[in-house]
């Protein structure tokens, strides 16, 4: 066959056909791909149900609960003590106020009944 009439385009075209011709996969190719896919989509381990937590976790939770409960009770007890103390202070203040006012009124009444050096503004006898 005389090749003197072949153009560079024909050579290029033939080269492309050779390269793009279907080829069978090398041996073991499919197995390698499947193995890699299994590794990538390996399922995550399921979380353990809470009632299957280790014993030390339950111990820590129980200890926290006990501290919280007793701490709350102690706080309430101290609040109550402080509150009662504050209440007592208020009652004492009111008592002293009342008795002081009463003493002043008694003094004024006594002075009004006797000649005295008292000077009062706006105090009316009942």
């Amino acid at each position, binding site marked *: 066959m005389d090749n003197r009439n072949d153009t560079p385009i024909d050579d290029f075209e033939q080269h492309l056909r050779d390269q793009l011709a279907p080829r069978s996969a090398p041996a073991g190719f499919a197995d390698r791909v499947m193995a890699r896919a299994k590794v990538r989509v390996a399922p995550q381990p399921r979380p353990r149900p809470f009632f299957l937590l280790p014993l030390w976790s339950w111990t820590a939770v129980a200890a926290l609960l006990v501290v919280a409960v007793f701490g709350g009770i102690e706080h309430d007890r101290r609040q*109550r003590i*402080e*509150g*009662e103390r*504050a*209440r007592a*202070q*208020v*009652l*004492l*203040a*009111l*008592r*002293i*106020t*009342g*008795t*002081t*006012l*009463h*003493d*002043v*009124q008694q*003094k*004024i*009444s006594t*002075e009004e009944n006797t000649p*005295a*050096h*008292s*000077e*009062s*503004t*706006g*105090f*009316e*006898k*009942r």
Partner: protein
Amino acid sequence: MKIKPILSLTLLFAALPFFGARFAAAQADQLPFPDVLSKQLAARASNYTEVTLDRKMLDFASHFMDNENDAEGKRIIAKLRGIYVRTYEFDKPGEYTAADLEQIRAHFESGDWSPIVKSRSKNDTDDSDIYMKTVNGEIQGMFILNAEPKELDIVYIDGPIRPEDLEGISGNFGIPSNLGGAKTIAPPPPNPMLQNRKAGPQ
């Protein structure tokens, strides 16, 4: 770029609320009479009682006044901003002077305070004073000073209080039940200067 002045100003404005709060707290802690006098009197007294209750303490205490008998007291303190009580008992007369009493009274001789009762004895050892603070026609404070030869009682109530309020608790908390005379203590007469000001120019 002038970052330093901006940073300084920012820090200054950020610190202002802190100092403002401290100043307000300091103001709130101040008693209406010089505390140094309280210390002096306490040093001379054989027995003394000091009760200082600000708004926070009154609020806190009211939560625990759920007894039936406490209802009236709870109602009184609900409106108050503070109650300050000082009582001193001395072994012998002469442990405080007239100057001490004048120093206490001086804080209530001006401003919105008006004397309601002024009782003076010959040797200033049996004096009594009641002052009331009036703001916009409403009583906003009461000061009671009762001086006896061997005892001195000082009561300062900050907030809306009337003598008839105290009558409501008479017979309770150890207060004599015949406190009915408190009803007759009249509020101070209106200030004519304020009245003229309200009338405006004519």
